[in-house]
């Protein structure tokens, strides 16, 4: 899904860069408030893992292939789409500058599609499907469309995130005059609907593994016991800093 140089006119690239930089400023503000000595190694490891897994294209039907993005995974683990913006943007910068994967002029568009769209769509889809809440008894409970089906919610949200990121890329291609809108949506949406299944499976495996070995790093396990449904990330930050 990395858009190379030449796919989007330079004027439009500049607009996407401005949007991406504004988003990065907000993301760094989130990081300044919420990152702790405990979560920094997790973020670095996720970046390394996402870089590696992005290089591994799996075949999909009709002569194409694809890789996972990981934005939904990061957003769900940290319970913040801004975490995904930080990790994905930094990984995209490394891929573009050192490995020629994705263009320099189009890096803003790639950050918007994979980092911002992937992170926000992944996180809020998950929240709509499964709303975590720490009960007064200290047991995590879920509400939302899927009720207690946390893993299904994570898988579906990951699929939606990569699918809509691809749809957004197709819209950008249409705006650039590179792909016709209808066929662009059909091809990009179709290929990434299949790639999304891989994204969903890997995301569930990674989050479930983390839940098994380091449940303290998953933001939802650090929610303060509350009778309300509200998620208070400031409370999570305080807990992270205390430990």
């Amino acid at each position, binding site marked *: *899904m990395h*858009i*190379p*140089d*030449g*796919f989007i006119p330079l004027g439009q690239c500049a607009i996407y860069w401005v949007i991406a930089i504004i988003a990065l400023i907000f993301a760094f503000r989130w*990081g*300044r*408030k919420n*990152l*702790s*000595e*405990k979560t*920094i*190694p997790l*973020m*670095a*490891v*996720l*970046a*390394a*893992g*996402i*870089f*590696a*897994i992005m*290089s*591994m*294209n799996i*075949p*999909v039907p009709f*002569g*194409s*292939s*694809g890789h996972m993005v990981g934005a939904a995974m990061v957003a769900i683990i940290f319970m913040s789409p801004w975490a995904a913006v*930080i*990790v994905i943007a*930094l*990984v995209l910068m*490394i891929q*573009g*500058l*050192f*490995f*020629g*994967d994705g*263009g*320099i002029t189009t890096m803003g568009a790639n950050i918007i599609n994979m980092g911002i769209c992937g992170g926000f769509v992944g996180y809020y889809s998950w929240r709509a499907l499964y709303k975590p809440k720490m009960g007064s008894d200290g047991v995590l409970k879920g509400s939302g469309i899927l009720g207690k089906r946390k893993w299904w919610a994570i898988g579906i949200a990951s699929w939606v995130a990569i699918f809509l990121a*691809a749809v957004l890329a197709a819209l950008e*291609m249409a705006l650039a005059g*590179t*792909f*016709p809108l209808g066929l*662009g949506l059909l*091809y*990009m949406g179709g*290929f*990434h609907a299949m790639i999304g299944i891989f994204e969903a499976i890997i995301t569930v495996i990674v989050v479930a593994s983390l839940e098994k070995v*380091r449940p303290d*790093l998953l933001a939802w396990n650090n929610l303060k016991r509350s009778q309300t449904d509200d998620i208070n990330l400031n409370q999570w930050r305080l807990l992270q800093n205390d430990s």
Partner: protein
Amino acid sequence: MTPKNRNLLIGGLIIALIIGVLSPFIASTNPDGLDASAEHLNPGVMINPGYWHAPFDNYQVPQLGDGPLAGIAALLIGVIIALVFVGIVTLVLRRRDNTDNTES
């Protein structure tokens, strides 16, 4: 750094490095979703305008030829860069936070 976090860092790095070593052998060589769409819809756009020449273009270390070793080396370099770069950026963000707290 606590032993638990050190283990997380080492364990995660090992997994990422293993993926990097295996990737040149098991990754599909088919074009990805965007490139496949471009091949069908607008093949002319695939020509790189050459704004930037990446040192490890196409995930290959050019000095190591075009065998799998060149791909493995590039991916291992990338994994290390990603870990260190994101670690440093997030650490700087965190340090600023501490500074802000002490000043306010």
